[in-house]
């Protein structure tokens, strides 16, 4: 159950931001793949990391654990892009962890949060 992940670097006002797009279901069978992508050593050097989860049609607590560990490591430098009312948004809400991760609805909003220009910055 391979995940599709693409990684781009975007130059924002505050510096280089890693943009990771993830596509596919995330569960116990492949959460380690997501973990490897978002714990790549070079991410630690970035001003920010944006994890785009809009093409993730399903995620369970295995994926959630990976996201929370990344949030713990990267702090406010991590922003998740999650489609409103999507299964991932639902998982964050059910798990009551919304205040533990930065969430945006669009790429621009995510970059704005990292640049200090977003509504919650």
């Amino acid at each position, binding site marked *: *159950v391979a995940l599709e992940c693409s990684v781009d670097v975007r130059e924002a006002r505050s510096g280089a931001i890693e943009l990771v797009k993830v596509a596919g279901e995330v569960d116990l069978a492949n959460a380690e793949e997501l973990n490897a992508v978002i714990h790549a050593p070079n991410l630690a050097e970035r001003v920010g990391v944006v994890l785009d989860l809009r093409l993730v049609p399903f995620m369970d607590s*295995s994926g959630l654990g990976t996201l929370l560990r990344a949030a713990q490591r990267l702090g406010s430098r991590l922003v998740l892009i999650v489609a409103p009312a999507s299964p991932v948004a639902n998982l964050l809400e*059910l798990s009551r962890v919304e205040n533990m991760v930065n969430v945006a609805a669009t790429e621009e909003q995510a970059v704005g949060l990292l640049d200090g220009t977003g509504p919650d910055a």
Partner: protein
Amino acid sequence: MAGGFSGHLEVDLELPARPSSVPEARRAVTRLAREVGASEQNVALGVSEAVGNAVLHAFKDEEQGTIRVRATPKPGILMVFIVDDGSGMAPNLESRGLGFGIPLITQVARDVRFDSSDQGTSVSMSFDAARTGSSRKPDLEGQS
């Protein structure tokens, strides 16, 4: 894998206790959920967490275990049973989970019951369903 859809509207699978069984079980039961008008999101999450728990917590190292996944519609509900032949729920210190699994199951299922002994663990979940499903056999091909 053994089984699949048995009869018109039922899931009955016997799967090895390994991570790849999680999506297999989830997809099979979610197809049935769609047929009977149950929440696909809730059923998918409940099954994924229950099977994942069995894989992570029911079997000691090197143990070859089996997980049986059954789902059957009843009037107004979809019943789902996840049963393993492991040694009961035990903490797994290697687990990547953070303890969200069972709380998530209790939130998405209408009712849930856990029974655990040294003979294995069973999780019985029910989900609201709008109908008992059509009589046609679900298309097993081309769906993920």
